[in-house]
């Protein structure tokens, strides 16, 4: 790891933040669990969605519908993102109509990813409500997007990078949120 990189959250801290997010979702939607569903944004949001789903399944004793959206085809920078047009599959196999959807991503930054993901979901139907849950909100919104459920807020510079690494990816033995400092702007 580079010297400028800093682990800001890890292991147990992350586990607790995720369980707090799950608790908040339960306190708000526990009584509407039959209309609740979780949608993770590929790829970082999917691991977080699966973790939250596991907690909800245990506490609510019901297997709420879950889905995955891939936003590649909905990006607003699709022409300039040629280096990584990793199109993944969108899997929304349940009926989204009239559902309470919690849209889940690992990091909230400009809000453009969330904008695109909302467009994907709306192409499948008309949910009653879409709310956003993220592990880390790092600020610098470029679009009026708001996250209802936030694990951790951190001040960053616009050109910093915030990476969430879940153990499921097989890169680290422990979950971590890493802040990679960008060059100071002159």
């Amino acid at each position, binding site marked *: 790891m580079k010297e400028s990189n800093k682990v800001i959250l890890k292991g147990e801290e992350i586990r607790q933040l995720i369980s707090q997010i799950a608790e908040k979702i339960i306190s708000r939607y526990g009584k509407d669990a039959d209309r609740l569903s979780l949608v993770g944004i590929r790829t970082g949001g999917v691991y977080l969605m699966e973790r939250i789903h596991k907690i909800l399944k245990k506490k609510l004793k019901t297997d709420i519908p879950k889905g995955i959206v*891939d936003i*590649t085809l909905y990006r607003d920078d699709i022409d300039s993102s040629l280096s990584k047009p990793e*199109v993944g*599959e969108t*899997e929304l196999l349940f009926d989204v109509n009239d559902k309470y959807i919690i849209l889940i991503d690992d990091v909230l930054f400009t809000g453009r990813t969330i904008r695109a993901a909302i467009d994907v979901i709306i192409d499948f139907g008309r949910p009653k409500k879409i709310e956003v849950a993220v592990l880390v909100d790092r600020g610098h919104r470029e679009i009026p997007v708001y996250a209802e459920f936030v694990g951790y807020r951190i001040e960053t510079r616009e050109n910093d990078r915030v990476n969430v690494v879940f153990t499921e990816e097989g890169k680290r033995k422990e979950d971590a949120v890493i802040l990679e400092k960008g060059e100071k702007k002159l």
Partner: protein
Amino acid sequence: MTIPRIIKKGEFAHKDLVSMEQLTEKEIYLILDKARMFKEISLRNIKKVPALKGKTVVNLFFEPSTRTRTSFEIAAKRLSADIVNITSSASAVVKGETLLDTAQTLMAMKPDFMIIRHSFSGSALYLSKIVSASVLNAGDGLHEHPTQALLDMYTMKEYKNRLEGLKVAIVGDIAHSRVARSNIIGLNKVKADVMLVGPKTLIPTGIEKMNVKVSHDLKEAVSWADVVMMLRIQLERLTEGLFPTIREYSMLYGLNKEILKNLRKDAIIMHPGPINRNVEISPDVVNDKRCVILNQVENGVAVRMAVLFLLRGAEKVSIEQ
């Protein structure tokens, strides 16, 4: 004349798709892999994604076609592109306009993609060199029909889970078939085994150089194959004296119930269409469970969406000459 130089970067560094010849094995798999993602879109309630929003596609068809033209049109529309159809009978071509002039006139209207079908081999390559739009070959004479080969390979992979080592028998008029040509080239690149089957008059001499087996016995080929691909017999060939009668051709090289007994249970039957029932394929074969002709059509849309998507975003740099 200033010919714009086109720079296309990224994992699919081609401005055009003119032939299977131009693709590497890796690029073929890239297209097939992307197509799998695009297939899901056609199953949605709202069958549209904004990937090519604001792009213009011209369908330039100088030869009749239903499925290829429609397939490209639907693929472009599901990616939110705007598409214009031009058929030769309704265009200035009948007034004697050359392909060069037609192309330049159309380019003045700034399309991003041009899809061409033309009876001259090499017409797609020629067009790709004179226009800055991305050119997709939808069949040029006896040369190639790359998106047909790609959708065929996609279908084979979907049913057989692999392409390497797959035994593919292509049956019929090999000599006049751009579908066969594109498939032979593509299947060779992914290391499948190809056997060509048909009367000697319809199989070019020396074709073994393309790394294929040749057989004149349909029964033998059918019992060998994982995939049997029937080609349409172009009835106009009859006047050229390449085979005596349709009936005789059908008896020797038509796929019927009797021959089908030799086909393995897990094999598949393909046909690029349009089919001539009772010539190269009998109606009970079309209804056989192993026949995947309509799946080919379905996959065609996904594969063409993938190709349009991968070709997008070429940067045009004009260089004065």
